[in-house]
């Protein structure tokens, strides 16, 4: 193969050795390219003027001329390529003048309404023999904005059960409110608080009930079960759930999970280390959340730790970075 030009270029246009674009031979060609770009832009946006002036400047001085973009565009009869699943008829209407010779204004698409939002945040739960540790940050964000730095993701449901929810705050508020009401109903009917296992099952059915318009929440349910053992349940948004020794969800969950795999499950460890005790797990959770705050922009501000054991639920707070 001779030179750098691939064989499918049959013309003899000289090409740049870097970009494989044709080398521009003269100012006239530049003008033609500018003109096509402007015409194409005109077809893509409403914020262009109809008339564009081109200035040619070289050693011999300056030369101005103007051309009518609309006229040029219709003379060339070129249209932007369309998204494959868009109605080609609609696209045609958008780019061609109607009977009155007018172009139709298109409503700005960034205003389209969505029922869902992602408010970010990270939570995790680690089960011990007779205790469980829940940790979550308190940042509430949307896109690049921080709505508030102090908004808890965790709700206490019974004396030995809490739920932490990441994802969409509005859905989490509704879900937690619903669950708290169900706790009261259960207590009135059965004269006792529901067990963590019962709540876990109830949460799954609650989420699946909204299978086709789901709560956009990613939940971690933690508590002490009827045998006195620490219990952690992990859920997806539509109610699939599993009891696990430790888990995490939210925007920083992928960062948290591998650390918990290594430090709690002792996966891929080359040196034997003793299992962490209660205090060790609390400190690990704090460290992990602090580290996630360095890498995930949706996690930060403050951390909350809920330690659940025979003594009940004891919440503590610690600082994360406020950036």
């Amino acid at each position: 193969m001779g030179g750098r030009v691939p064989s499918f270029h049959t013309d003899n246009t000289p090409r740049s050795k870097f970009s494989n674009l044709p080398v521009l031979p003269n100012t006239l060609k530049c003008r033609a390219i500018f003109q096509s770009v402007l015409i194409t832009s005109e077809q893509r946006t409403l914020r262009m003027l109809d008339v564009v002036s081109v200035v040619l400047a070289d050693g011999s001085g300056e030369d101005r001329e103007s051309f009518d973009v609309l006229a040029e565009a219709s003379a060339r009869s070129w249209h932007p390529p369309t998204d494959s699943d868009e109605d080609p008829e609609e696209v045609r209407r958008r780019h061609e003048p109607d009977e009155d010779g007018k172009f139709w204004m298109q409503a700005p698409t960034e205003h389209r309404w969505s029922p869902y939002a992602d408010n970010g945040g990270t939570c995790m739960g680690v089960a011990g023999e007779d205790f469980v540790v829940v940790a979550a940050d308190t940042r509430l964000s949307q896109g690049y904005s921080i709505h508030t730095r102090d908004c808890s993701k965790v709700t206490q449901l019974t004396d030995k059960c809490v739920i932490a929810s990441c994802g969409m705050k509005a859905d989490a508020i509704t879900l937690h409110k619903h669950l708290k009401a169900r706790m009261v109903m259960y207590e009135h009917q059965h004269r006792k608080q529901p067990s963590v296992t019962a709540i876990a099952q109830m949460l799954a059915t609650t989420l699946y009930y909204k299978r086709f318009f789901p709560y956009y929440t990613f939940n971690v349910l933690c508590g002490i079960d009827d045998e006195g053992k620490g219990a952690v349940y992990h859920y997806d948004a539509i109610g699939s759930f599993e009891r696990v020794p430790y888990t995490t969800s939210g925007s920083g969950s992928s960062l948290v999970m591998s650390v918990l795999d290594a430090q709690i499950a002792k996966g891929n460890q080359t040196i034997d280390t003793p299992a962490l005790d209660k205090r060790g797990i609390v400190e690990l959770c704090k460290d992990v959340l602090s580290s996630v705050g360095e890498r995930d922009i949706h996690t930060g501000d403050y951390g909350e730790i809920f330690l659940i054991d025979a003594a009940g639920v004891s919440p503590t707070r610690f600082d994360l970075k406020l950036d």
Partner: protein
Amino acid sequence: MCSSCSLHHRRRDLNDRGRAMAPGQYSMDAKQHTMSPVVTGATVIGMKYKDGVILAADTLASYGNEARYKDVCRLKKIGDHTLLGAGGEISDFQYLGDLLDEMADEEACDARSVLVPAPPFPLQDQAPHLMYVDHQGTAFEEDFVATGFGMHLGIPLLRNNWKPDMSLDEAKALATKCLEVCFYRDCKAYCKIQIGVCAGAGVEIGPPTPINHFWGHTAWTENRLEDGDSTGTW
């Protein structure tokens, strides 16, 4: 076509000629009306101060990029102890206001006899609360909040200058400053504002007031381009 919107990402609001909707055109499907807002308000600034809460908003209701209605009150008193301010679709705000008025009336009648209604929504803990709720239901309490462009232009000023023990005048001045900055940079902001105060004594919405603005800075007026017919900016 499904009217539950949401899950049909590709669906556009189409008018009866099958065209994409422009602002102001109404959809054939009543449920889709306010999916794309038509007449909108911009920034609302809210903050707590020493004795209560204030809300501030300009008086403009825009129609797309047009400054359509220039004397619209975007603040509303609900019951005796609540002040509501809104950005976004103005018709939704007005409807929501009516709904809340009804709720306040019902609350009042349920709380006492029909003949002697109790004040609706009494202060539960005698402490000021400032809450933000958006169209999706995202809700939180804060010491200061802002909607719309104010979230980007006003919040940094509030972060730097807000203090919990501010006097009413200081709070008003800060809110005015935020709206002034919005007016300089947000094409949907306006130079006439209203400030509502919610304190122990009740709720009071102030009169529409012009804000100071100055466009005569040298950087904005001197020519920066050589052809001489364009004015400068920074």
